[in-house]
Structures are given as structure tokens and as C-alpha cells.
């Protein structure tokens, strides 16, 4: 194991975390309430040989205990009735809590798991500006938005850090590009590319992205910063940067979800209110989530 990785695991108080990251995780789907009620979806799929178990911390996610086919190869999927999405990836939109009628910015949106969830939570009312920086990313975003029958999303092509929105949004999600340790169970190569220098590079970008996101947020608005990685610099470090810009960190409590507090290091102690989600705690991907108030 890379020494830096070993050191990180020690700092996090979980020497065995890397092994947990490598372990296979259950698959999850999210019922698309724009089209179907979760209980109805469960019935429809279970008639076809699936076994689904509701996840503890929201009303629309299911663990796939058994499926007779690839999760994306069904008629119901083509009809947009569900979206294949890891249970942890459902948390940031939940924490953001977008309401019907609000204006929401999703700064790093593609392929749109969270965008379509946000649109669902808003019942297609209000506006979601879903941004990403490459045309092909906008194409995959559109594909999912269209499949989910989301009608309140505008796909915007721009480098997040170059956007110039000023206090226009009630809610902002920055689901940042990161070193992705949470995805090691799908792609073990991530462990090889993970390094202090890759962290440094991404941190510089993450800082610029949250600055733009925070600027776009109305006073009194809520921003969620999330990553699917574990490095403290990419997580609490970025939140600490936001605190210096005037952000307040709010506590996150989700019934049924086991979380661990943020790592303080030499940062502002508010970062302790951020949460870390570890695979061995909830059988779901590693994630980091911070709820910020302006």
C-alpha cells in the first residue's frame, strides 16, 4: 500500500478502510417518483423475479437483493421508472433538500444521477441549471434527463469555475471531480493513480469550483459540497476554504444512515459538522458531504 494511503487510513482511525473500499457492494436503484410510486415499482419488478429492499434513509431508494438481468436492461428502465444509482450518491441531493419552485444550480452535473434526483424532489417545478464542462458530458446528461422525464433542467456548458452567477440560486450542489476512492470497488486502478500530487491538482480545481458555487448562492441559501473520496484535503480542506469566504457549516442528520464526523486537523472546528460515509457502515460507497449556509 502507498505510504500516503496508509497514513490517511490511520488518520481516519480505520486502518482497514482500504480493504473495505475494495469490497464488492450491493447495487442500488432509485425509483423515479416523476413517473412511478416506489411501492408500485417494487411490485412491478418483484413480479419479474427481482428482490428489492428499501434503503433505510430515504423513501425512494432500493437495494437490489436479486435481479434476473443487468439492471439497465429492462423495459421499466427504458420507461424511466428507475435510475441505477449508488445509495450514497442519493445523499447529497437529500441533504440539499431542493423544494418545488426553487432555483438550483448543479455545478458538476454529468451524468445526472443527482440532477435527475433533484428534479424529482422538486416535482419538476422550479429551475435546475445543470452544468458540466464538455459537450459530450452534456449529451450524457441530456440522455438521463430525457429518460427520467425531467422537464425543469437546463443543461449548461461551461467550466464551473468560469460561471459568473451572482446570488441567483436558492440551492447549489457542487459534486466535485475528485480522486474517487469511493469508486475503487468498481475500478481498482484508482488506487494506483491516487497520489498526493493528484490530490493537490484536484484541490486547486475544487477550490475554484466552490468559490463559483458559493458566489452563485443567494444570501441565506444552502450549498452542498460532496465528493466520493476520502482525502482530507479534498473534503474538510475545501470546506475550510469556504469558511474563510464566510460560509457557515450546518449539521447533517439523516435517520437510518451511519456517518462519521469531519476531520478537524488544523482547520476551523466547524468542519466537524461535515459527514463521512464509509462502505463498511452502510454497505454503500464512500462519500463526503458538507452542508453550507451563506
Amino acid at each position, binding site marked *: 500500500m502507498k505510504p500516503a494511503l496508509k497514513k490517511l487510513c490511520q488518520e481516519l482511525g480505520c486502518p482497514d478502510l482500504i480493504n473495505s473500499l475494495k469490497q464488492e457492494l450491493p447495487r442500488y436503484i432509485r425509483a423515479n417518483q416523476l413517473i412511478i410510486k416506489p411501492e408500485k415499482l417494487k411490485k412491478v419488478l418483484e413480479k419479474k423475479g427481482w428482490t428489492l429492499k428499501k434503503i433505510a434513509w430515504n423513501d425512494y431508494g432500493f437495494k437490489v437483493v436479486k435481479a434476473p438481468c443487468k439492471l439497465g436492461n429492462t423495459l421499466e428502465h427504458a*420507461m424511466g421508472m428507475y435510475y441505477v444509482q449508488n445509495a450514497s450518491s442519493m445523499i447529497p441531493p437529500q441533504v440539499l433538500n431542493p423544494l418545488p419552485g426553487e432555483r438550483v444550480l448543479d455545478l458538476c452535473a454529468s451524468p445526472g444521477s443527482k440532477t435527475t434526483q433533484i428534479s424529482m424532489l422538486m416535482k419538476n417545478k422550479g429551475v435546475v441549471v445543470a452544468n458540466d464542462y464538455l459537450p459530450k458530458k452534456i449529451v450524457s446528461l*441530456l440522455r438521463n434527463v430525457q429518460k427520467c422525464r425531467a422537464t425543469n433542467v437546463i443543461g*449548461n456548458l461551461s467550466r464551473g469555475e468560469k460561471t459568473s452567477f451572482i446570488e441567483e440560486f436558492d440551492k447549489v450542489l457542487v459534486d466535485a471531480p475528485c480522486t474517487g476512492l469511493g469508486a475503487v470497488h468498481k475500478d481498482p486502478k484508482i488506487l494506483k493513480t491516487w497520489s498526493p500530487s493528484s490530490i493537490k491538482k484536484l484541490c486547486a480545481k475544487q477550490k475554484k469550483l466552490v468559490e463559483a458555487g458559493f458566489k452563485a448562492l443567494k444570501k441565506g441559501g444552502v450549498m452542498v459540497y460532496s465528493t466520493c473520496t476520502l482525502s482530507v484535503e479534498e473534503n474538510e480542506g475545501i470546506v475550510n476554504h469556504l469558511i474563510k469566504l464566510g460560509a457557515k457549516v450546518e449539521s447533517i442528520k439523516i435517520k437510518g444512515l451511519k456517518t462519521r464526523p469531519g476531520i478537524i486537523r488544523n482547520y476551523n472546528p466547524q468542519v466537524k459538522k461535515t459527514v463521512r460515509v464509509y462502505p463498511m457502515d452502510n454497505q454503500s460507497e464512500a462519500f463526503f458531504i458538507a452542508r453550507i449556509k451563506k
Partner: protein
Amino acid sequence: MKFEYMNTNEVKKINDFLEQRFGTRLEQYYYLKQRDRIWVFSGEHEKLEKLRPGFTGFRLGIIDKRRSFKPSQESSTLIKARKNVLEVSEKEARNWLAGKDLKKQGVDGWFLLRTKTGFFGVGKRVQGFFRNIVPKRSRVIGFF
């Protein structure tokens, strides 16, 4: 890629088609066009000058070369049709989404296609035959 709000006349034309064919109007949306594509947007009236939009809402369909409106496959869920809905078997639905034509006798014209569970597409019947119009990129291969 220029997106523009459509004028009332253009929107009326589409809604007249929806009403005549499916017995319903979709008037709760903003309508935008971008080349031949028609988008519906359920949000607020957005000033697009400040954005670099790649899409604006949901793709309702296109205006084809003969200047008539052709609904997208996914629009079948949005249009709350009161008539001209055709229910087919799941096997037929899978075949359609995989890119195959659909044979079903009946009168000609546009139909929303559904199974007993939900809507999956839109097709135009000509002499008992729906020629497949599912775009290649959205076809599903390896269906269960």
C-alpha cells in the same frame, strides 16, 4: 446551438396537433426551439443570454422536413392522451425499443405506445405498420 422561445402561434400549432390527435394540450410549459428540435420547459422564464445551453428542458419532438411535428419517444409519458393510445405486449415493446418495426392492424396515424405498466414510445401507423423511429443512440440492445 441557438435556443429561442417559440411564439404563441408556433406553440398553438403544436398544441392543436396534440389536441386533434391525442385529445389533450400541453400548455403548462414554455416552448423553445433549437433548429428543428422542440423543447418544453416547466421552470421559470429563464434569460438564456447568460447561459450556454446544451438543452433546455425536455425534448418534446422535432419539426420534420415537411414542417410537421414529430413527437419524441419519451414524450409519450408527458402527453396525457385521451385517445389514440395503443397498448401492446411487453415483447412488442422490447422489440420496438430494440429498433424493430411493429405490425398492428388498425387505422393510420400517430399513436402513443404503452404496455400495461407504462408508456414507452410514439409511432406512426401506415397501412398496419409502424416503421421504427427510435433513434439509434437510444435503442436498447440485450434486453431482458
